[in-house]
């Protein structure tokens, strides 16, 4: 074609193609610049397992790095210079006792195996409050932040009813008083201070706080299928929350309060919803056998499972497995839960009438109690406290159709798609919950951090960028 094109035109053509490529630079768009409408230079995180960064049933250096509070602090740091955040990190790759992925059972249920902790410094066997097997207390290597207190005061397993327990973080209490090994490693050796005292000290220099606490109060009862510990009661929880929040909000310190998610949105329960499990087992065994649970009130009797009863996810792989049962004078091998003579034991199931209703009521009251009118003796729930303090509140179960922030727990239970990646409540494959059916994966923590950011942006007129959660790892293993 060149032959036909005179020189002048050829030059014009070259110029035209050059112009084409010059103009082909991507269309310009302005990116918003980050604005932080509040002082985040000293962020204090108060809470339990979620705040500490528990994942796969344990706390490791990696899981701490991916705690939602640390992810949040990282976004603060990117948006505002001088925002430091000190965590009580384990050294190297060390961590506590935890779980690891161990395939699926033939019935398709997730299985996990135990991994010994590398940061355990002392193991003590204690008499168990319930059951015959002793409890194992594993004391952990002390945090290097013990002298000064870290900014992440999340303590796995910390109960609201323990915030005034003296010696909770003192090794000397072992055997006589409750000890929380995760709290113990935050303090200097032999320190008798209570969590409330520690928190009050740390709060004095904080400029911003987050409060996400209360689930670990209820979890021991839930994990034991309602066989260990008292039935959860919201009144002491609300009183403890008010004491903590009074300190945290002193001098109008800004912060964010988190409501607890519905207990049924945790995979520990949602994976074991009565009718679904029954149908799944029937599909696997290709039969129509019902699933039986022990009848509350009547020891030894069994009843068919309902959709309001939840089998703990940790017990699911055992369903249908033959176990020895004493029938009359003989011992028979009967499929666990699939024979009325071998019902699912009380410890493996949260039954509706005596367990679920109390747990749900306690969480509802703790989250929402805000009566109109109220008086001086009213003990408010988190919603009422947030209103009084004028603080934003993150509700993990709010609907994403209303706010970008609320795509959590309940929405994850119904599955959500985040930039083309589907998140569900199924641990491992769902990428949100970790192997313990309760705590979050780094991506789950990322989604939680993003809903915090959205709440902060709305409430404090800020422009803090969110995380690309699909960039985070799907497990801390």
């Amino acid at each position: 074609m060149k032959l036909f094109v005179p020189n002048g035109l050829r030059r014009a053509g070259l110029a035209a193609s050059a112009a084409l490529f010059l103009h082909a630079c991507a269309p310009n768009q302005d990116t918003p610049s980050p604005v932080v409408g509040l002082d985040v230079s000293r962020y204090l995180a108060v809470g339990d397992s979620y705040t500490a960064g528990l994942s796969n049933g344990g706390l490791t250096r990696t899981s701490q790095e991916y705690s939602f509070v640390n992810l949040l602090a990282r976004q603060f740091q990117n948006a505002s210079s001088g925002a430091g955040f000190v965590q009580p990190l384990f050294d190297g790759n060390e961590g506590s006792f935890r779980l690891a992925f161990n395939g699926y059972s033939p019935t398709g249920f997730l299985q996990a195996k135990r991994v010994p902790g590398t940061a355990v410094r002392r193991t003590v066997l204690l008499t168990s409050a319930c059951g015959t097997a002793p409890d194992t207390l594993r004391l952990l290597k002390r945090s290097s932040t013990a002298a000064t207190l870290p900014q992440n005061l999340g303590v796995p397993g910390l109960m609201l009813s323990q915030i005034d327990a003296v010696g909770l973080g003192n090794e000397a209490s072992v055997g006589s008083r409750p000890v929380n090994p995760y709290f113990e490693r935050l303090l200097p050796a032999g320190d008798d201070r209570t969590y409330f005292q520690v928190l009050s000290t740390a709060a004095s220099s904080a400029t911003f706080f987050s409060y996400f606490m209360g689930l670990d109060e209820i979890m021991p009862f839930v994990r034991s299928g309602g066989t260990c510990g008292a039935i959860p009661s919201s009144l002491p929880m609300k009183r403890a929350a008010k004491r903590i929040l009074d300190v945290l909000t002193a001098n109008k310190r800004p912060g964010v309060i988190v409501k607890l998610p519905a207990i049924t949105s945790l995979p520990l329960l949602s994976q074991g919803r009565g009718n679904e499990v029954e149908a799944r087992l029937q599909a696997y065994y290709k039969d129509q056998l019902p699933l039986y649970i022990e009848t509350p009130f009547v020891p030894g009797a069994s009843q068919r499972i309902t959709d309001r009863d939840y089998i703990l996810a940790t017990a699911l792989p055992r369903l249908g497995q033959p176990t020895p049962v004493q029938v009359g004078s003989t011992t028979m091998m009967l499929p666990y839960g699939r024979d009325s003579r071998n019902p699912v034991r009380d410890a493996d199931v949260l039954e509706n009438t005596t367990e679920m209703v109390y747990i749900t009521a306690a969480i509802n009251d703790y989250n929402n109690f805000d009566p109109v009118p109220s008086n001086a003796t009213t003990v408010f729930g988190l919603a009422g406290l947030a209103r009084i303090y004028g603080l934003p509140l993150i509700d993990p179960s709010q609907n994403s159709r209303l706010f970008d922030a609320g795509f959590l727990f309940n929405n994850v239970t119904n599955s959500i798609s985040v930039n083309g990646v589907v998140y569900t409540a199924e641990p491992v494959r769902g990428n949100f919950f970790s192997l313990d059916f309760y705590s979050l994966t780094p991506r789950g923590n990322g989604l939680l951090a993003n809903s915090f950011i959205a709440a902060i942006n709305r409430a404090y007129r800020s422009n803090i960028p969110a995380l690309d959660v699909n960039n985070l790892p799907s497990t801390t293993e």
Partner: protein
Amino acid sequence: MRARLLFLLPLFSGLTAAASGFDTGPQGARVLGLGGASTAYIGSIAGLSTNPGLLGQWGDSLTRISLGGFGQIRRSSFVGQDTYQRTDQDLTVLPGGYFYATRAVSKRVSVGLALTTPYGYHTKWPDTWEGRSVIQESKLNTFFAQPTVGFKLNDNFSAGVGLVYAFGKYTQRRALGQYDDPTAQATLTSSGSGYGVNVGLYGRTGDNLAFGISYRSGIKLKMDNGAFHATGIPARDASILPGAADFTTQINLPSTLSVGIADRITKKLLLTFDFALTGWSTLDSLKLNVAASGPVPARVQRTARRYEDALAFRVGAEYQVTPKLLVLGGFHYDETPIRDEFVNPEFLDANRAGASAGLSYQLSPRFAVEAAYSFDYGQLRTARADQTRFLVSNVSGTYRTLTHTASLGVAAAF
């Protein structure tokens, strides 16, 4: 004469749907320079693909050939709604080409052939961008062959009909972002063909004013040879996601109804107006029927598109500068078939305003070279993903798209 046409303007501007979508624009350098307003334009035989009714107008003793190539760069930038991160699409050039030939077989009947590449796109995002699990790269190429017969009804009117054979190839690549392995990917490849028909009418009232009307049917590209491949799937998920599977799908290319007017204002200046309605609404969703593979049962995978019919308005001008040199200019406005809630980074489009310029230089009485360039500026599009709607894989943010098209060709008559 000009006043006669002005009444059309409010008529057209009042309509709020339009063309664009993934058509690659006018199929010929000269009609590209004219902004695509070629339904009643007989200056180039490239009009054959727009309106077969024009064919009768080239019914003299000459054989005409027009051929050339074009390149299209369609590039978008993205700013994440919450992450504020900007991502620019990688630079890709979608190649295209055209070949036209016409010849009279009798006083009244002419035959012609049009080979064109009227639809296509090539979207390529950086492999690590925010929406990588929605799309990394997507490509559609089409090739149309249209043998045409034209009839000269009388001195002023002609009609034509063409049979369209269309072939298309579709490939898509996306990350499997549910896995930590950054190389985990799923690819789709398929190709297929379909038939359609193109009919048109051309008429002249006196020497100065001409009009044309044409309709090209929609074409269903049936793709039965689709291949799905996935890499990087961990062993634990082998039972739910296959490494390879066959699939079938169908891509519906839209019908087009065009109406045009050409008005010779002076001896040297010709103005053309076109108005096209493109039936994009046949593109409702991309549905893949994936066959069973190993332990994984057959399934249907669907992505909603929900395109709307769309209108385009085009104006072109041709000016004879010297006996050998013609310059062309055009303006067009295309509204997008893509609704706000279905904006998808696989193929981005917006209401576009575009301008074009071109020239035709007569090297000898029988031979001319033609060149043109066109630029489209797209409106800013805002996508808000609804995480509970799985049918629409989306990434929240704003998109802006610019399109550049350049074409070079020759026209000969002998």
